[in-house]
């Protein structure tokens, strides 16, 4: 399986990443691309930007570990994950997950699995910059629930609580 995991501050070009993964190949039948985009408002209030903090080293290894887990669960032909950090303005991309497989079900499942885990286990923290100041985004219960449906045996991977 062709794996690319990359963290960067600058925007990515999803099309370039997809081409890197898939062009010239005739084994891939299904390509799923997820792009997370910075929205211009949150809870009805306009936002100026997001700032993403991350834990260098751990972020890469956590993502790579989840890509390996996805590859154990589904017969994947390639996975690309790109996650940005730093300042991100509305309309800019934040995260990219590309999964390639022979058939669509596997590609969809792996992409959703990876996004659910990125949301809940990858060490990134979003700060939102609104007119009334900066504040840290709260983790959402819906994301924990989404991650739990994959019921990974996570060993020491649990939260400190």
């Amino acid at each position, binding site marked *: 399986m062709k794996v690319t995991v990359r963290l960067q501050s600058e925007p990515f070009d999803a099309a370039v990443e997809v081409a890197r993964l898939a062009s010239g190949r005739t084994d891939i039948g299904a390509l799923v691309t997820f792009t997370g985009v910075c929205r211009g408002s949150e809870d009805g209030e306009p936002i100026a930007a997001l700032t993403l903090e991350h834990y260098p080293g751990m972020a890469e290894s956590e993502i790579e570990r989840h890509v390996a887990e996805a590859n154990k669960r589904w017969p994947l032909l390639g996975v690309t994950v790109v996650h940005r950090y730093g300042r991100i303005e509305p309309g800019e991309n934040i995260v990219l997950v590309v999964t390639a497989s022979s058939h669509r079900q596997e590609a969809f499942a792996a992409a959703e699995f990876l996004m659910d885990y990125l949301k809940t286990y990858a060490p990134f923290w979003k700060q939102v910059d609104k007119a009334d100041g900066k504040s*840290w985004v709260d983790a959402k219960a819906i994301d924990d629930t989404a991650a739990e449906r994959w019921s990974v045996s996570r060993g*020491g991977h649990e939260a*400190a609580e």
Partner: protein
Amino acid sequence: MNLKLRYFAWVRERVGKPEETVEVPPGIATVAELMTWLASRGEEYAHAFNNAKIIRAAIDQKHVRADALIKGAGEIAFFPPMTGG
């Protein structure tokens, strides 16, 4: 025991620094005990760790539970629940 600590997001903001090396007193065995000791180190630490139940921890860049043993750890990080993706 000499230990490198790293803080992220609002834990970092409250503590007022991204990392530090501390001399952990004997008798502190788990991540939870380490947080209790840290909370006693001053106002900014109390503010950061007064709601320790929601703080997550990683030992040597791997997620751990609060009952994980800190013996042998090179680097312990504390941070709020993740909000990436």
